[in-house]
């Protein structure tokens, strides 16, 4: 078989041509797919589980919110120690040998977790609240060691906290201004105020939810809901959808890598492990995607269609002995 010539006429010379109505085929496909989409929409609808607000979180699991906010102040949450692009925490960015694209582009979306999620919202709320204002002054004027001591003590007390009428109480101890700060933050959150304070940007309009999503991601409440909905990474994560609906099933290969060695292993292989799985999988998927595009140039991959006789099913008529006379010349 010769490569394609300058024109289709040359390419198809000697091939029997038969009538074929492409426009009718497209019209029928439009009608058929339209009808199928219509039926699926009418009978199955589409998923739309309401988003979780910080107010929901504060009302449903106030201890988790207070614990998360305390950890933000202590700098021990995921966001606080995330590294680029949110902050410059040393050695936090994922790397594989010298490959460290996360660090290469620096802090482009700065987020100071303690300040953004706790101190700034409290500061804004303290104008008409003298008790909170005094607590914040005490916090800001205290030495770092003192702040750490209060945080340690409060963090240790929180697992045994009790909730009464939505308020969180811990056993007596030396927590400095933290109980006042946290009860106020919880109250603001329960009223819905924190949802607004975390997206405030000094302008009227906003469309960036980086801060509230990072804060909620640091807590356990949203993750717990996701686990109940079978959305977590160990259950193939992002390709799932709430309910029984199909999600992004086309991400199956990407999500599959998180389930297998070395990306699910602490020890790993050639420096790839669960700790830098995101980077390793991004690199792997980039290579595989480029490989898919270059299949026509890659020996073995480009030859496999000839070895696997599926093409004989597709072109049954061409390969049928009785049609031999109709083959190309």
């Amino acid at each position, binding site marked *: 078989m010769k490569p394609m010539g300058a024109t289709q006429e040359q390419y198809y010379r000697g091939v029997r041509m*038969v009538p074929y109505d492409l426009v009718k085929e497209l019209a029928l496909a439009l009608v058929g797919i339209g009808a199928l989409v219509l039926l699926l929409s009418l009978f199955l609808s589409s998923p739309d589980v309401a988003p979780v607000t910080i107010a929901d979180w504060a009302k449903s699991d106030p201890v988790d919110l207070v614990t998360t906010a305390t950890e933000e102040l202590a700098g021990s949450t995921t966001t606080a120690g995330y590294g680029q692009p949110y902050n410059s925490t040393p050695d936090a960015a994922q790397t594989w040998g010298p490959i460290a694209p996360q660090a290469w582009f620096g802090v482009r979306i700065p987020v100071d977790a303690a300040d953004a999620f706790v101190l700034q919202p409290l500061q804004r709320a303290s104008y008409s609240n003298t008790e909170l204002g005094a607590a914040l002054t005490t916090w800001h004027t205290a030495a770092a060691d003192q702040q750490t001591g209060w945080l340690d003590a409060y963090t240790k007390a929180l697992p045994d906290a009790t909730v009464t009428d939505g308020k969180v109480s811990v056993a007596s101890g030396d927590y400095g201004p933290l109980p006042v700060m946290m009860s106020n933050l919880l109250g603001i959150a329960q009223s819905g105020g924190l949802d607004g304070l975390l997206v405030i940007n000094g302008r009227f309009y906003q469309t960036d*939810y980086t801060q509230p999503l990072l804060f909620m991601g640091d807590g356990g409440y949203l993750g717990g809901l996701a686990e109940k909905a079978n959305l977590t990474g160990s259950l193939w994560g992002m390709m799932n959808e709430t309910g029984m609906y199909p999600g992004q099933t086309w991400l199956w290969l990407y999500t599959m890598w998180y389930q297998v060695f070395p990306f699910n292993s602490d020890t790993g292989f050639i420096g790839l492990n669960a700790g830098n799985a995101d980077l390793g999988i991004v690199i792997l998927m980039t290579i595989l*995607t480029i490989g898919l595009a270059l299949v026509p140039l890659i020996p073995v991959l480009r030859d496999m269609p000839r070895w696997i006789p599926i093409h004989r099913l597709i072109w049954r008529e061409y390969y049928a002995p009785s049609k031999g006379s109709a083959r190309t010349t």
Partner: protein
Amino acid sequence: MGATSSFEGATPVKSKIWTLRLRQAIDRHLPMDHLLPDRQPYYVGSWVYVFGVITIAALVWVIVSGVVLSFMGPQWWHDSSLGRFFNSLHFWSVQLFFIFMVLHLWGQYFMAGWRHGRAATWMIGVVIFGISILTAFTGYLSQQNFDAQFIAINAKDAMNSGGIGAFFNVLNFGQMYGLHVMLLPIGVTFLVVVHIVMVRSRGVVKPIDPEGGAGS
């Protein structure tokens, strides 16, 4: 051969009129009987050939439903049953678009559809597949519901680890929505048109010759 003026008769002389040269180049490379042929080789008889057309049909419904949703704004489909219905049309047409695109891709792989000068057509098809995944991904992030929240929180780690998150912030609804309703659909649609023109300009590939190999 360069473009010739229609006033030059049988003598091929390169025209200085760009418009004429463009028209003649189109006539030469993509005449109407190639763009809309009424005859095909006799072996074009398998259902596999229909997957590409069905993918285009699904894309049409994705765009139609998406245009209605974007016209009415991102809150509409949460607040009205008609909006929810149009979101369902969008959701299911996207699902069918991907199903038939993947079937088309596998079909073309087993037919070695890149042979005889068609490698660029295959490569652009893979690029369309990739951009479609990105378009759908930004759509899931633009849903403004629980799924969107959870996907954004999880996806940020992959994006950030590859350095992409510094410029493509999945937690920024405005950026994701803008990309989803404007730039990425334009990219997909443009490349699909290019893909179709490339397919039609060369015609369908011949069956694999048992002696010639897939790459022949």
